[in-house]
């Protein structure tokens, strides 16, 4: 790697760079970014980092305290808690990524339809959004679990159903605001159809703030996954998740405090990391969003 030339070093900084610099200037932003990177790397290289197979049962070693061999001790089946926590990062991030992407797609499509479509469609969709949002998340999740049974897919359905209406409402409001903008009217008078207007003009204008809001929802989704898994309604055993580790620890809270400590710690760190990063990102990119939350 050669040192940058004078021209490269003094070239005008593009918008994106300055947002990043803004982010790095904020100590909490740096802290959040570090935590998120650590969690991301842990999830990616989980197999290499975990010292044991997270599902390998060794009953003679059950409920051991923390030691050099088992950093966070072992659970009631003698499984290495540290390895389970490391692999849990992968589940948490996978669920967050898949579920939020799906929620964005569903909510975005419905929001565009509501915002750009006829009034009656708007009325119906807004009523649907408000109805789903009026269920307390956990109650909705529990009702769904009774019906379709506990699984990773159930968790994802719960997240999509809870978040899609929120995204839908935001997209709807933004689309409505755009609908009467002059450049849209000009485009329409040139004969552009709804699909072209929405795809070429509406979506790029809406996507930015939406992504910031979605990134701030990552810790919430991680919490939902862990919460449902803690209740036994999410990830099925023996798959490791932070929630199932907490559940194992809860059952043995009287004699083994370290399992709960180990299961809760990554949850605390990841929610803090994503929240700090999200707040710093929002302030760096679009401070106006502060009001909407």
């Amino acid at each position, binding site marked *: 790697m050669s040192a940058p030339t004078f021209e490269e070093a003094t070239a005008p900084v593009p918008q994106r760079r300055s947002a990043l610099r803004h982010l790095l200037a904020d100590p*909490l932003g740096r802290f959040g970014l570090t935590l998120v990177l650590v969690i991301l790397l842990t999830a990616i290289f989980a197999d290499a980092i975990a010292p044991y197979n997270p599902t390998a049962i060794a009953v003679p070693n059950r409920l051991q305290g923390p030691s050099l061999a088992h950093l966070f001790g072992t659970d009631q089946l003698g499984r290495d808690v540290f390895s389970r926590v490391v692999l849990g990062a992968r589940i948490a991030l996978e669920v967050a990524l898949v579920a939020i992407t799906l929620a964005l797609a569903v909510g975005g499509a419905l929001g565009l339809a509501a915002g750009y479509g006829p009034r009656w469609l708007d009325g119906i969709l807004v*009523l*649907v959004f*408000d*109805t*789903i949002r*009026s*269920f*307390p*998340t*956990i*109650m*909705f999740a*529990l*009702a*769904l*679990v*009774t*019906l*379709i049974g506990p699984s990773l897919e159930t968790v994802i359905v719960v997240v999509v159903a809870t978040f899609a209406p929120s995204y839908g409402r935001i997209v709807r409001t933004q689309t409505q605001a755009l609908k009467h903008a002059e450049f849209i009217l000009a485009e329409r008078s040139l004969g552009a159809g709804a699909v072209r207007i929405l795809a070429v003009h509406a979506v790029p204008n809406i996507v930015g703030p939406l992504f910031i809001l979605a990134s701030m929802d990552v*810790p919430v989704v991680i*919490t939902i996954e*862990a*919460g449902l898994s*803690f*209740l*036994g*309604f999410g990830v099925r055993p023996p798959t490791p998740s932070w929630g199932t580790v*907490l559940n194992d*620890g*809860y059952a043995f*809270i*009287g004699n083994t*405090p370290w399992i*709960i*400590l180990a299961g*809760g710690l990554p*949850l*605390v760190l990841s*929610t*803090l990391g*994503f*929240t*700090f990063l999200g*707040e710093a990102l929002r302030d760096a990119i679009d401070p106006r969003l502060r009001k909407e939350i």
Partner: protein
Amino acid sequence: MFLFALRRSALACAIIFCAIALLFGMIYIVPGDPASVALGPLATPEIKAAFRAQMGLDQPVTTQFFIFLSHVFTGDLGIDLFSNRRVTEIVFEALPYTIALTASGIGWAIALGVPLGCWSAIHRETWLDRIAGVFAVAAIAVPSFVVALYALLLFAVELNWFPAIGAGARGNLGDQLAHLVLPSFAIGLGWVGYLARLVRASMLEVLGENHIRTARAYGLPERRIVFRYALRLAVLPTVTLLGVGIGNLLSGAVFAEIVFARPGAGKLVFDAVVTRNFPIVSGAVLVTTALFTLCTLASDLLIAWLDPRVRANL
């Protein structure tokens, strides 16, 4: 205002109606014949047919829906599959525990969050304010059930300061309060952070106003200005926001009830889900949803009453 109240109430009714329809629809999505599930594999076709007739399952779907609807409006949410008691009775027995827990959660939030927000506003832009801000964000971010588990571990199991499980002996108020401390703290902590931020923001706004400047000109101490004159204005927008937060608090309450093995709506639904007792689940979900919708309705009306600009937006 009247028109706004009317339209907002109509929306709330529509939402509750849709919620009922959604719950009714969910039962139909479930694969499997309810009669075979309820009666087991040994049931003859005749017994199944009799069961269907008894439950009204042989009627067309629309008729079933209207029967369901009329039952809901007369307060009949069905019969518990196991105890044969009325679901309404069971749910309303559990609900006071949850309401007490939620209310004490809000109590924590007000007792800690409002002073913290004022304190931040007094020390604005100092490192004290910064630390309080970080604490507030952290309190919001950390999952309440992890707080509940850590609190249970530290204060109940290790230190033994507070009781670990149950809601306390009936009629013994001190005992019941002692059982309330940890779970309500767990669900209220997030709101401590929320309130602190809201109060700080609105306090800073209020502190810029004329009457505060007058109070300053008279040479009143800052502390007195904040707590005597500014707080009553700054608190207004936050009080109305509590209505919206009831949903979060209810979700937190479900976990707190399960972690601390407290009776309540959350524990009730959890146990019913484990045993796949759908009448209880749907009954409790319906009641809490209605409660939540009424709370948001109340807070929306309150906000509209206080701030006329909101009324234009429905």
